[in-house]
């Protein structure tokens, strides 16, 4: 028998092992839910699987009585639009600021401490300010996401740019490049793979800020819905919504990873 530290799962057993916790949680849920519903058929805490089906049919397939819309899809579209705008703006801002500060020591001396301080302000603490300044509409939600993650991305990119071997920067200059071209042809391409990683890492925070903002002031959105139906203890809606958000987050993470491998083949082989 080999030592535990040397045991590697086969492909199949790795897959089974990965599925196991999900299956266990599922059955634990069904068993507990059944037990509770047997004791009290009106229990709302752990609804049966059939209740989830009915709730989702109501939310996703039946037009709402008030507006005639399919609420689930409308919520998803609104949330994804806010998230994409916020993350997209943050990625561009973070890249531009990070590359500039990383590549130009003179600018970094002036702005690095400022960006570092900005990134230390808890974004939720300034949410009221955002509501006051930008109103309760879409803008304040997007700005919250940007405020929350752009400084983190910028600092990450700045760090990556500083890690670029000095030799490469010197080399580019000996090939006749000016500052702008060094940044364009050397620094930027070398920093881009890190941007994908930085976005992947900050997606979790982006969701957090999105849901928080939606919970406080919105008329639709996944976070808005969850906090709205909480008043009626509607676990049959909340749990599928949470599952859906998790799935979306997972798909984005995988998608970004694939995109990174596609766009930067030179990196995949060196890793």
């Amino acid at each position, binding site marked *: 028998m080999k030592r535990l530290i040397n045991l590697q799962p086969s492909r199949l057993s790795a897959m089974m092992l990965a599925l196991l916790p999900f299956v266990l949680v599922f059955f634990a849920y069904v068993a507990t839910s059944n037990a509770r519903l047997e004791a009290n058929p009106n229990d709302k805490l752990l609804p049966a699987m059939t209740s989830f089906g009915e709730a989702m049919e109501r939310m996703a397939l039946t037009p709402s009585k008030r507006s005639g819309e399919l609420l689930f899809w409308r919520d998803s579209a609104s949330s994804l639009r806010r998230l994409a705008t916020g993350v997209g703006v943050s990625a561009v801002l973070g890249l531009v600021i990070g590359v500039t500060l990383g590549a130009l020591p003179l600018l970094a001396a002036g702005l690095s401490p400022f960006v570092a301080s900005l990134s230390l302000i808890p974004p939720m603490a300034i949410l009221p300010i955002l509501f006051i300044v930008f109103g309760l509409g879409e803008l304040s939600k997007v700005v919250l996401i940007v405020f929350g993650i752009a400084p983190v991305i910028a600092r990450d990119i700045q760090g990556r740019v500083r890690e670029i071997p000095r030799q490469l920067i010197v080399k*580019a200059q000996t090939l006749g490049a000016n500052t702008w*071209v060094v940044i364009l042809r050397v620094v930027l391409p070398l920093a881009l793979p890190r941007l994908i990683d930085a976005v992947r890492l900050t997606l979790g925070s982006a969701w957090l800020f999105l849901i928080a903002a939606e919970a406080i002031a919105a008329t639709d959105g996944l976070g808005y819905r969850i906090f709205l139906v909480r008043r009626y203890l509607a676990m049959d809606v909340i749990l599928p919504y949470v599952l859906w958000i998790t799935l979306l987050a997972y798909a984005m993470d995988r998608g970004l990873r694939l995109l990174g491998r596609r766009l930067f083949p030179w990196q995949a082989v060196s890793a």
Partner: protein
Amino acid sequence: MSGHTALIEARNVWKTYGDQVVLERLDLSIAEGEFCAVVGASGCGKTTFLRMLLGEEPPDRGQILFDGTPLHMEPDAGRSIVFQRYSVFPHLTVLGNVLLGLELRQSPLLGRLFGGARRYARGKALEMLAQVGLDHAQHRYPSELSGGMQQRLALAQSLIVQPRLLLLDEPFGALDPGIRADMHKLVAALWREHRLTVLMITHDLKEGFALGTRLFVFDKVRVDPQAPGAYGSRVTYDLPLKRPEDRALSAAVPALAMA
């Protein structure tokens, strides 16, 4: 070297880091077309001197003249370099790495060439790659190349901009002895073909003798055992070597590059 104008002339150059004197009273003069090998103990300041020639570090005292005028204190296209590592750009293919030298210089706005200019540059880059025997690997990324191939790529990339001075900092230090011998032939051939002026740092005295027309030894003339940083190095030996033309060296460049 009387009669020639010196390409590089260092006069009474000093360099200190903190209270550690690295170089002191360093004088040397290199004529156009020479192949100078620099040897010396580890930490004696060879790389520091090379960085000064690149324009990365200013001397604390003294003067370095490049072609008779004070050296431009910033890396530029007149002086090219091959480092021991990190000389090639990991995000560009072999062809892209060589093409880059032509693109960066000719296109100050985008750093890229298009259309006919690009086709012409591509042709020149492929010619250069053929000289170092890498034309078959033009589409590969550096991470897919062996150490020897990476250094050959670095040479091609440096030479495409036709530098007045080629600086080499232990370019073959990380290579196997067999590959190193092939690289020596290649460098000697390129040196003659392109009429280069070369300054090469090496830890391998044999390498210096094999390639150089001149050998510099950097060393300290004074040593204070109580304070190892109190005195710096200078050129303690300056040996003219037999011209490599005299040696049995095949001039068929592409054949030599088949390492």
